């Protein structure tokens, strides 16, 4: 018996998207964005000769030559762990401290609040090179050169304005009456903050943390000048090992894999929080 060629749809079923071309466009955009990264990753698995070949080769014999060079010969995993420690610690401190600053700016009226708010933002405008020497001298005097503690302090200070600026807006979006209700029930302001505001803020805090983490992870200029062998992080190490007077493309590719993989993993794990955080405040209640 021949099967019927029509289908029966419930009136309550969601609308089927007919605009297939949107998907075609989206796929193309994704491809355009993804192919360069794919190519860099592939280059990381090529040997030196294939990587510098004039004709791009999609099919090649994979080689771990570049990874061996970076991990075994150059000991880049030490730089990797330095980066992990510095990024996580500076993200934790800057978000924790910045959260309270942002809360104060969002909730309390005090003289010069707008000035403080603007001053915080201007810290972010300063190009790193303008303060490199003063910071170098400060680090030298304080014995912080080539230490992880030094980098954590610096990155925390560098990222604070960004955290404060981001979170102030998010705090303002949460109605004050939620906390007031808790305080009417007998909570202190801190208990109200912890039990009511903080859970509502989690997506925003997570999104902010991701951005701060990325900024700390990728920081190059200060890491180059303030560290030497003990506290050197990934960005200066990668530059030194893959780009000398010439460029070793497969080493550069392997380095890109090593430096981006943890970030991609981090973002994938927290993807839901990130999207939720980014979209928070876009719809006024």
């Amino acid at each position, binding site marked *: 018996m021949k099967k019927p060629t029509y289908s029966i749809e419930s009136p309550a079923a969601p609308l089927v998207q007919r605009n297939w071309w949107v998907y075609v466009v989206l796929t193309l955009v994704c491809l355009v964005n993804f192919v360069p990264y794919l190519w860099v990753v592939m280059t990381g698995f090529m040997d030196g*000769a294939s990587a510098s070949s004039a004709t791009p080769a999609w099919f090649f014999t994979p080689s771990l030559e570049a990874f061996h060079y970076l991990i075994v010969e150059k000991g880049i995993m030490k730089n990797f762990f330095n980066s992990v420690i510095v990024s996580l610690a500076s993200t934790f401190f800057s978000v924790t401290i910045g959260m309270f600053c942002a809360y104060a700016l969002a909730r309390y009226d005090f003289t010069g609040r707008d000035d403080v708010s603007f001053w915080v933002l201007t810290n972010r405008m300063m190009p790193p090179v303008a303060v490199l020497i003063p910071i170098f001298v400060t680090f030298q005097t304080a014995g912080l050169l080539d230490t992880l503690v030094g980098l954590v302090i610096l990155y925390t200070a560098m990222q604070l304005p960004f955290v404060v600026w981001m979170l102030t807006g998010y705090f303002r979006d949460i109605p004050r009456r939620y906390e007031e209700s808790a305080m009417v029930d007998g909570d202190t302001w801190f208990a109200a903050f912890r039990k009511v505001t903080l859970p509502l803020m989690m997506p925003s805090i997570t999104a902010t943390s991701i951005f701060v983490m990325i900024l700390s992870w990728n920081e190059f200029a200060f890491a180059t000048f303030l560290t*030497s062998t003990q506290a050197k992080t990934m960005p200066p190490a990668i530059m030194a090992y893959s780009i000398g007077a*010439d460029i070793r493309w497969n080493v550069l590719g392997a380095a890109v894999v090593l430096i981006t993989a943890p970030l991609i993993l981090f973002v994938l794990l927290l993807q839901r929080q990130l999207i939720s955080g980014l979209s928070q405040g876009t719809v006024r209640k």
Partner: protein
Amino acid sequence: MNMVKLSAVTAAGLSLMLLALPAHAQTEAQKALAGKTVHFLAPSMPQFAALAKFFPEFEEKYGIKVVVDEVPFENYRQKSLVEMQQGTGTYDFFAVDVMWLAEYAAAGFLEPLMPYVKNADLTDADYDIDDFLPRVISGTGVFNDTLYTLPIGAGPVGTTFRADIAEKAGFKLPERFSPEFTTKYMYDAAKKVNNPESNMIGFANIPGRWFWGVTYLPYLFAYQTPETKGDEYVDKDWKITINNERTVASIDYFLSLKEFMPADSANWGIGEATAVYQAGNAFGTWNYQDFVKGFFEDSETQAKVAGKNVHLHTPAGPDGVIDPWFGAWSLGVSKDSKNKEAAWTFMQWVTSKDVQARATQYGAGPSRHSTYKSETLAKYQPWWPGVYDFMLKETNPDERVRVPEWAEISDVMGEEGNRVWIGEIDSKTAAANMEKRMTDAMRKGGYYIPGRSDLPKQQWRDLTYYDRLPSEWN
């Protein structure tokens, strides 16, 4: 046992005994340094990578640990300057480019080395400083008659071409230093094979702003006449002389190579040009002799071009003048080091006859007579022995004038030259601007103060200054 067997056994026994003995007995002072760690700041370049292969051997022999901090070449100068100026003492010795020596030595960043060389407690008995080529050691490390650094390879810049491409096009490239290889010859040869549609450009030039002090200078010098040699930048009274028709002609020639380059090449540096050549997409490019092995002749990483190259000098100009280029990297002990003796122990070991000869296998360049004559060099880098006489008699360590203002002069040249490359100004305007700005730099340096009598000597006018025996320096 017959005589042959007896000889063989004796020889084997002697060989074993020799192997068991250390090459040099250590002094008590050297032994006392065991357990120390020395820190070395170096740019990531092939010749330093070659030296790094010897660190474990040194550590085993002397018990001194060497920690190297590699920094991208682009950041190296700033990083080393900040460390030196602040006197951090983080690094015990630095890699020093010849063009920075005057600046570093004048500022007191480096330790004079001759007291160490002459200290028998710290220097191996067969170190033999007079084995270094006189111009190489004086050109690399001497400032105001004092030795500050030791060379780890010095050489000319040149050009590298694909012999196989030339052959296909029906011509054979000349020998190194052949008078046949002129600026005109180079341009014509590049034009003959230039075919961008088939991914082959005639010449991968390096017009990036920073590089003019390295890549354009060979043409500035080649365009001199025998009469104007020595007056390329300044006259005998230190007045800037660069605004002349020879400079303009040399810029125009440098610019003529733009014809072979892609439209986006204005910022090409060594990395970009070399990558294009390594990929087999250029007939010729610039080279520095110390980079040849690492960049062009490493069959593992440069499979496309290794073994197919001809390494020539930069071309002779219209009047037959060739560039007397002298380039070198060296090692200098930091004035602020807390381990100067340990740093010196490493430096004298790594620049010894034995290590220098062996390092050539991995791409290090020669600085000693013995290294030039070693079989290892002839086997692994056969393009070197051909420049021995040039480095002995022709090269001019003062091509890049040895004054603290050189960095600014070089920068001015690059900025104005690059403006010509991008079409913002013409070569005549560039030469005029260079003269004006270089004059300002020299004025700032106090060269034109009336009655001043302590101006530096222009040693390039009589190069015998650099031909002193190395041991005669302070």
